[in-house]
């Protein structure tokens, strides 16, 4: 196994040159993004350094409740972020947190339960980061799309209801469109993984000295896991969201 080449704080400082170049380009082209770039540079540095220390502390304690708390915080933050783009859906915050949780943590639970992923903070937290991030994006897309589709297809939905369809039956084409929209970006990236992109986890393992043939096996599990999480999160988000647009008597709410 190759030895892992560390990055020193001095080298980290030198990498800031890249941000200086970005700032200079923004200024030169009058993009007016200097303030945002400075803030983003500062925030990414502080957030990542902080998370490094937090993870190191959790990994060393190996206490299950710290791991659960971390997963809980990650799920809530991901859910709240996803809900921000769908404020027109009542209870969007809960729906998003639940969808991200069911998709992300559910999939993770299955793999840990089957013994494919080791039940250890070292494995569970970094992998859940990837799954929750993807579940968050799928939830955002599904919620955004279902709300748009229901507005767009209002006449068609009311026609279906008038023919005796339940709200679930009437909204079926909108649900399918939302679920597909949530899944397609992931299917696209599955198609091109290894050709167009080398995924972060695999890259990390290779840099850390793992043989590529071993790193890809892990990555394949992660790709399948993300796909399952995205599908479950997207479908959950669409199914939970559409109900907010109907009464219990299958009446479409609002004009």
């Amino acid at each position, binding site marked *: 196994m190759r030895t892992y080449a560390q990055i020193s704080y001095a080298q980290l400082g030198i990498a800031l040159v890249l941000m200086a170049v970005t700032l200079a380009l923004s200024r030169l082209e009058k993009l007016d993004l200097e303030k945002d770039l400075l803030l983003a540079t500062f925030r990414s540095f502080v957030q990542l350094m902080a998370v490094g220390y937090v993870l190191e502390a959790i990994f060393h304690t190996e206490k299950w409740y710290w791991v659960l708390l971390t997963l809980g915080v990650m799920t809530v933050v991901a859910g709240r972020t996803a809900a921000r783009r769908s404020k027109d859906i009542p209870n969007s915050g809960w729906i998003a947190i639940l969808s991200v949780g069911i998709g992300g943590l559910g999939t993770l639970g299955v793999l840990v339960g089957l013994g494919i992923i080791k039940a250890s903070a070292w494995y569970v937290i970094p992998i859940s980061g990837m799954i929750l991030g993807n579940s968050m994006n799928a939830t955002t897309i599904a919620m955004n799309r279902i709300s748009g589709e229901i507005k767009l297809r209002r*006449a*068609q939905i*009311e*026609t*279906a*209801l*008038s*023919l*005796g*369809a*339940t709200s679930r*039956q009437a909204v079926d*084409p909108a649900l399918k469109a939302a679920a597909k929209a949530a899944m397609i970006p992931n299917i696209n990236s599955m198609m091109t993984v290894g050709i167009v992109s080398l995924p972060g986890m695999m890259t990390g393992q290779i840099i850390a000295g793992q043989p590529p043939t071993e790193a890809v096996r892990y990555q394949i599990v992660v790709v399948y896991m993300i796909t399952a999480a995205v599908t479950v999160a997207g479908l959950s988000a669409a199914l939970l969201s559409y109900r907010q647009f109907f009464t219990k*008597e*299958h*009446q*479409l709410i609002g004009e």
Partner: protein
Amino acid sequence: MINRLDDPSSGSIYLDGEDTRNINILSLRRRIGMIFQSPSVFDGTVEDNLHYGAQLVGEKTDAAKLLERVGLGEEFLQRNAGSLSGGEQQRLSIARTLATNPEILLMDEPTSALDPAARIRIEELVTKMNRDGLTIVFVTHDMEQARRIGTQTMLLVGGRMIEESPTDEFFTSPQTKTAKLFVEGKLT
């Protein structure tokens, strides 16, 4: 409101003496078919559209016969529903609703989005369906249209029923001041 796509803020609606709120909503909507102002067809062929209502309850329907009832030929069956003209789409909507064997057909200004030729054909169809025994509640703002096709006329103003009488009587000798003003075209 009659088929409870929406509920009244006050008051009740009765069907054969029974409060519509006490009837299973899905069966109520099949008993009272509805045609909207602008026709709305589902993705797929004319035949797919005609089967929609029946499929919801696991039944089959004679698509060609339904088309015949609304004056469209069998050659329409495999056509994309979205490619039909406005008038044809409205007739398809009527056929699709007839597939659920409604007791009453609620038509909410079904001709207001159509050209005059299509409007006449829909009016002829409505008159024929009514003569064949189907009860039709036809909502219109067009007095002449109400006169042409109605048998019983009810004037609603601001959500309240002002007058109800046989159509001929309603237009020749309205009983209320509001109905009189309406018939004279002076109701603002």
